């Protein structure tokens, strides 16, 4: 096997060449903020020019103004909010079910080796089939109503949450458990004082993945089988060849994904803040 760090004679030859000039950037927060803008602005300018001079047909690439106008218009008419609300309710419902199921499954498998022996192989086999693999089957079984969406979204959230919870609990160092034994903790104290705090970081990671996957699943389900929601806005715009509607909906999908992620990061700080202080 290869050595990670191989220092041979031939490297001595490199001595003379070494001090590479590296240029330093201003260490200002403002400079950093400023540097984020040239690329998006250049892309926007190029897009604007392309639309303005009709290098590309507007059916294929609508102008940025058209997209902004469509976004403003659908926000004003309430269409956007109605669709957004439908999507958010669906994702919250599905994520809630997936969270509860995933935590339960993960905790049970993590705590009891016997339960794990019975459940884990089946769980693993079911989770090998990606969310989209279940879609045609579920469409036949439960139709294309709300139930389909909730089931698929909760499946998307459940798998990473269950897996991370299980591995998190498994990964609690035995030394911690021994300390708990020495202190004669009851079963409940052991769980609430030792196991869960120690496993919280991986569990929380699972929850974050779960929400990301739930949002991803929501968009797919709405693209494939829905008559309302953000995904439907995209399909609808696509069918009418109104790419301004498509792009406006895509922007909203991105923004909501971003906000959900930020929200979880905020909760994480509260939830796991004590760990950083300790280190």
């Amino acid at each position, binding site marked *: *096997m*290869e*050595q*990670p*760090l*191989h*220092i041979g004679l031939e*490297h001595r030859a*490199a*001595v003379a*060449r*070494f001090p*590479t000039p590296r*240029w330093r*950037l201003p260490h200002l927060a403002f400079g950093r903020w400023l*540097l*984020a803008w040239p*690329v*998006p602005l250049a*892309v926007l300018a190029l897009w604007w020019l392309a639309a303005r001079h009709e290098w590309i047909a507007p*059916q*294929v690439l609508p102008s940025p103004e058209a997209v902004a106008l469509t976004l403003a218009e659908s926000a004003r008419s309430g269409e956007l909010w109605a669709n957004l609300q439908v999507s958010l309710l669906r994702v919250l419902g599905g994520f809630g079910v997936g969270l509860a199921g995933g935590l339960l499954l993960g905790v049970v498998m993590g705590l*009891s080796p*016997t339960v794990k*022996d*019975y*459940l884990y*192989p*089946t769980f693993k*086999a079911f989770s*090998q*089939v*990606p*969310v*989209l*693999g*279940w*879609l*045609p*089957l579920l*469409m*036949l079984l439960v139709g294309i109503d709300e139930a389909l969406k909730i089931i698929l979204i909760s499946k998307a959230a459940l798998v990473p949450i269950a897996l991370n919870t299980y591995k998190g609990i498994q990964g609690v160092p035995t030394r911690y458990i021994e300390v708990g034994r020495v202190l004669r903790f009851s079963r409940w104290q052991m769980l609430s004082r030792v196991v869960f705090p120690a496993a919280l970081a991986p569990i929380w990671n699972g929850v974050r993945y779960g929400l990301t996957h739930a*949002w*991803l699943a929501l*968009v797919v389900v709405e*693209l*494939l089988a829905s008559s309302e929601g953000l*995904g439907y806005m*995209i*399909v609808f*715009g696509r069918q009418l*060849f109104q790419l301004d509607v*498509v*792009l406006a909906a*895509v922007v909203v*999908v*991105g923004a909501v*994904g*971003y906000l959900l*992620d930020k929200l979880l990061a905020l909760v994480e700080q509260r939830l796991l803040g004590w760990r950083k202080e300790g280190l």
Partner: protein
Amino acid sequence: MARTFIPRPLRGWVLPAALLAAWWLATRWGWTTSPLLVPPEKVWATAVEQVTSGKLAAALGASLRRDLIGFAIGSSAGLLFGALLGASRLADRLLGPSFHTLKQISLFAWIPLLSVWFGLGDAAKVAFLSLAAFFPVVLNTYEGIRSVPADLLEVARVLRFTRWQTWRHLILPSASPSIFAGVHLALIYAWLATLGAEYLLVSGQGIGNTMIDGREHFWMDLVLFGVIVVGLVGFALNWIASRIEARALAWRGRSVAQF
């Protein structure tokens, strides 16, 4: 807890066997008249028919070919871009924020746009697959390179490594677990995206198209067969990736996390 008589290695089979038995009994005794609950034998017959007629090979071949092409393009582009962001502070500050914003857009939301730009054929599908593989590789490569310990870089300075030597001997080996994790993730995402692309850009051949076909004709046996094949392929891809990962990282002397 009561001691059970079932030996440990067999315990994993209890639940699947029970489910299979329930399924078989339900169809056998006619607990339901739904045409959707097909007996297990029928699924088996469909499976045999699909395999022997070569239909499965054709569909799976088309899907896997697209999957691998898209994965190869997306992950190599992702490696380069991730390395650029990780290595150059300037590139990170110029391109990083745009990248992190784009990454928030749910993957499948791109499909309608791609279908307008690239049509409904293989080009759009491969473009979408590349996109699916691109994001996880960039993120993990970037994070891997960023988390190379400062001590190691100082070693490089002490040893007067050239820039190339630093990369070859320090940065890449040190970032490799994270990079492999990203590539592994990309492989899983690409497979998910392959199905999505086949559902949403309905043209051509593939295992996803087979399943859609089954659904439209209410052929439950075909759909179930598809679900099983999709699961097996996912499992196989995952297994191969784990093996390669374990091999490539064996010099580190410990196994890495499995997905």
